[in-house]
Every structure is written in structure tokens, then in C-alpha cells.
């Protein structure tokens, strides 16, 4: 399974754009990149997933360069409620049953200040 590396913590202010970069040098050809968000005392919540180039949804954008060895989660105009831990995962397709084995690292603790 490809290992991911991301900053332990980040600070930002309300209204700013936040970019969290994740390194995954050993990503395999079939691997997808997925980001989850976790608030205290809640389970992780799926944010966005991509394979290459750029993906955008109503919550965030995901930028993946051509070599796919890194990815950047972009949160536009953050608010206090975006304070959470953000996890970058590289999905490995496990044949049996066809599921995505998730390896959560320590994640990035984002603190948004007023």
C-alpha cells in the first residue's frame, strides 16, 4: 500500500483559501487518491476523490499533477466549521469482495481562526 505524508498541522483564518498537500511517491497505477475529514467525536467523512488532473465538487477541489506523486486538497474560503483533521489516502483495490482498503495516517489538523 502506498504510504502518504502530509503536514501534521496547519493554521488559517476565516475567508482564506487553504491548500493541504499530500505526498505519495509510491502510488500504483490503479490507485485513486481520496480525502476524508474528521471532526472530534465523529467518524471520518468522505470529501473528494480523484485519479489525475483536477476534480471539483461543492466542498473542495483536488489537484493531482501528471506524475501523481502528490496531491493538493484546496478548501476555498474556510470558516470556523472547517476546523478538523484531514486525511489523505491512496486506495488500494483489494480483489476479495472489491473494496478499498483504507489506511488512515495521522492526518493534518487544520485550525481555522476568527
Amino acid at each position, binding site marked *: 500500500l502506498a504510504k502518504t505524508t502530509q503536514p501534521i498541522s496547519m493554521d488559517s483564518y476565516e475567508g482564506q483559501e487553504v491548500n493541504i498537500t499530500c505526498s505519495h511517491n509510491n502510488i500504483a497505477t490503479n490507485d485513486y487518491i*481520496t480525502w476524508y475529514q474528521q471532526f472530534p*467525536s465523529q*467518524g471520518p467523512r468522505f470529501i473528494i*476523490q480523484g485519479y489525475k488532473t483536477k476534480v471539483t465538487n461543492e466542498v473542495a477541489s483536488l489537484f493531482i499533477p501528471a506524475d501523481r506523486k502528490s496531491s493538493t486538497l484546496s478548501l476555498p474560503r474556510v470558516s470556523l466549521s472547517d476546523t478538523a483533521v484531514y486525511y489523505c489516502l491512496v486506495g488500494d483495490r483489494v480483489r476479495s*469482495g472489491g*473494496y*478499498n482498503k483504507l489506511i488512515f495516517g495521522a492526518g493534518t489538523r487544520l485550525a481555522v481562526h476568527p
Partner: protein
Amino acid sequence: DVKVTQSSRYLVKRTGEKVFLECVQDMDHENMFWYRQDPGLGLRLIYFSYDVKMKEKGDIPEGYSVSREKKERFSLILESASTNQTSMYLCASSLPGGTQPQHFGDGTRLSIL
């Protein structure tokens, strides 16, 4: 929206007790998972089920068993609870397929005294 419901948010049990953690999902997902989350260790997969009555061991199955008699319900059983099983337990479900995101419940914080 997918709803994954775990029966208890907080649970306190004693060493040696048999403990049942229940999880129900309402989206007809084939896959269901049990994880535990501990500070500094991230989420670790305990067991996985890809169909009714089917199960596979995850990374840390020792001391646990599971039951899936109905598609929507996945139970985690601590056969004889020990203090090192004090943790946050998270249930998740997903459609089959390697790119399908997992949908998590809000967790059960279990304390074994």
C-alpha cells in the same frame, strides 16, 4: 444521504464481559467494516464483510468476532473484554468496488474497566 448508525455513543463495560457493538446502514451497501481508532495509531481495520454471513479478518482481529445475519446490520463482538480494547470503534459501509468511498458512523467510545 447514507446513514450509518451505531447503537451507542458511549459504553462502559468490565473486564471479562462479552460486549456487543451494533451497526446499521440504510443504503443497501454490500460492504461493511469495523475499525478502531486510537491516538497516534490512526484507524485500524478489525473485520470486513462483503455479503451476508461473509467476513474477512482485517489487520487486528484478535479478541474480536463479527456477525452479519442481515445485509443492513453488522455486529462487532468482544468475546471477553480487556482493558487494551478501550478505544473508539467506528463502523463504515460502502458499495462494492475499489474506488467506492466508505461512509462512517459517529463511533462508539468504549471503556473497559
